[in-house]
């Protein structure tokens, strides 16, 4: 017992100061991708053919746009532009309220808005979520588990993962929605009493991710359920998810780009 207390005293507090600072990401961290319009002068759209994902959308007139929901955050996607116009910033904030908001010509996205007043009164200080993995790799789930550790400590904001959809106010979906998991996902959603939220976490849940095109998976949860919060990443950094959820609850706001 005394050994433990000694260790505890020695280690001090390790919980991050988030959302009041405390985000210290290394130089190589691949956060929100950006497209430099200056370098992308010719709009050649070569990147769309070269990128190993659907991160680049071309063909809307002359426009080239970045789709954060399809981004796998791999070094190769940034290298897809022969003019070096695509790069990753160290910005971890990129969760949005709609699927379309994840697509933008520069990678700057309107960050998620707070829920309406009435829903926020219900969930703002106590949100219970049920996690459903449906055709994922376990990367996103591992980061959801990380949210519960002493560093990110999701519970200090009144947000908790619960054991049953019956106890939940919403579900967090990860994975591209495999054929074998589709029924279970729908049943879990139905089991949550309304009003309820759906949060899509990770490239798979948003767009099918690296498994897009396989006959065994769909293209994410958006085709099946109404999604309230879209959190890109492969997997999203815990701060990205935390930022998204806190914006939804109106605890964090501002900083739009």
């Amino acid at each position: 017992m005394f050994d433990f207390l000694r260790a505890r005293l020695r280690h001090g507090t390790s919980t991050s100061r988030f959302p009041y600072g405390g985000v210290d990401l290394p130089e190589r961290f691949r956060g929100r991708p950006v497209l430099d319009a200056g370098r992308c002068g010719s709009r050649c759209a070569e990147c769309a053919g070269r990128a190993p994902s659907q991160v680049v959308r071309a063909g809307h007139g002359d426009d080239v746009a970045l789709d954060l929901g399809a981004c796998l955050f791999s070094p190769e996607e940034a290298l897809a532009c022969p003019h070096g116009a695509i790069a990753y910033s160290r910005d971890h904030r990129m969760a949005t309220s709609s699927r379309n908001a994840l697509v933008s010509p520069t990678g700057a996205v309107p960050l998620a808005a707070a829920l309406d007043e009435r829903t926020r009164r219900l969930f703002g200080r106590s949100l219970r979520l049920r996690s459903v993995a449906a055709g994922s790799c376990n990367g996103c789930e591992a980061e959801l588990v990380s949210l519960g550790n002493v560093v990110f400590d999701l519970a200090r904001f009144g947000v908790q993962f619960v054991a049953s959809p019956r106890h939940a106010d919403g579900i967090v979906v990860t994975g591209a929605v495999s054929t074998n998991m589709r029924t279970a996902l729908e049943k879990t959603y139905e089991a949550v009493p309304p009003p309820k939220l759906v949060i899509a976490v990770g490239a798979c849940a948003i767009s099918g991710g690296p498994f897009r095109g396989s006959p065994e998976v769909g293209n994410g949860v958006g085709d099946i359920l109404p999604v309230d919060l879209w959190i890109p990443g492969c997997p999203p950094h815990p701060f990205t998810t935390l930022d998204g959820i806190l914006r939804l609850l109106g605890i964090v706001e501002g900083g739009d780009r």
Partner: protein
Amino acid sequence: MTPPRDIGLRNRRTVRWEAVPRASIDTFAAEIDEAVREGWRLASLCGLPEGPDGLCLLAVLADDQGGALTATSTVVGAEYPAVSRGCPQAALFEREIAEQCGSLPRGHPALKPLRRHPPDHAPASWRAKTVDREGYPFSHVGGDDVHEVAVGPVHAGIIEPGHFRFQAYGEEVLALDIMLGYQHRGVERLLETHDLVRAVLVAESIAGDTVIGHAEAFCGAIEALARSHKTARAQAVRAVALELERLANHIGDLGAMAGDVAYQPAAAFLGRWRGECLNLLMTLSGNRYGRGLIRPGGVAFDLEPSMASDMRDRLERLREELAPILRMMFENASVQARFEGVGAVPRELCDALGLVGLTARACDVGRDVRHDHPYGAFRFAHVPVATAWAGDVLARALVRRAEIQRSLDFVIEQLDALPKRAIRTDCGALRPNELAVAMSEGWRGEIVHVIVTEAEGRIRRCKVKDPSFHNWAALTLAMAGNQISDFPLCNKSFNLSYAGHDL
């Protein structure tokens, strides 16, 4: 009979496809049976369509003592006499073949669906089979007081989907059936059809907690087929990343096991240090799980001297802080009482089923690819194999503890003496008509990627085996005779991958 013929196959080496012996199905089965009796292990067994109407079965056998691999093959039709009639190690593989390729192994001891999907590797002329994705033949135990408990696919915690069906008498588990396949994404097909850049991204997503392990094995097979030589520096960086992945997961698992027995102090500390190890991977690769690092021909990011010395300092501090917490945890009477004797896997079954990784090492089977089939940096710097003997939850915890210490020693040693040179070399075109086998020791155990190329050098077949493929059977065995309430702890002590199994 003679031992299997040495055709020159080794970990991360290739042989010409013609050099793989071709036998009748009876000889094929007898050879596998004989080799397994002599101590070889069936590392992989898969089907690949040959012509419009034939299915080639390819077996890869491993001699863990001799560090050798060999392969043999046969061609079968829509039915064949099951290899698993004599060799239990083949049983799971044959369930997989029946499902993926649509060929029926006659006389199979327990033919059931494995992942519940229509065949995606069947010969072109075979009629497509329809698959019942919902039906599953669960075992039943009769008797008035016997009851059934069904759990999943949506569980209580934040974990992947799987369905567990217990036959229980009171609290005692009589039998457990595990139905998987909910995470099936068709990974092998994607690896076979995508270009290499996209395929590596899929390989990194086979199991999201084993990004380095799977990407490394996939790239190892590709590099062997392309005759690409990695520099010593690239190999050292890969080995460091693999051990950081092991550290993160082992530390996290010990923390989760502590949490499952309500020893919160260790759960809190270890949860944080898991994050520390992931953050080291992020410093190196830009991603907490090491995505983007392992690429054909080497690594995409260098471990510069300043980064190496910083990483070294952080690991030294981790080693210093970890020791007293682990000591407290393992000396705590209530932790010992909950870990000891629970979920024991008998050693004989470990041998019979060919279990791998820390599950096997906890049964005193010193099986470790880094030691038995060394590759890359592990040829020059050895990591001692850690074993325990009881095969229970405590043994698996002790193996993790020892491996944490040894991985820390290994990484710190590597960081002190990183070889100079480039980090990446060009990886050219794949040689046509060859077979490559690449194994690596992921944190759960042996990962095997088998790749066969066709005439133009494209990938004809890519067979992935995650350690969880074999080891899920260990969980069923471990639960028999235990209490249902011990299941979460028991499950966590294996911490197997659903995604890695389901592919």
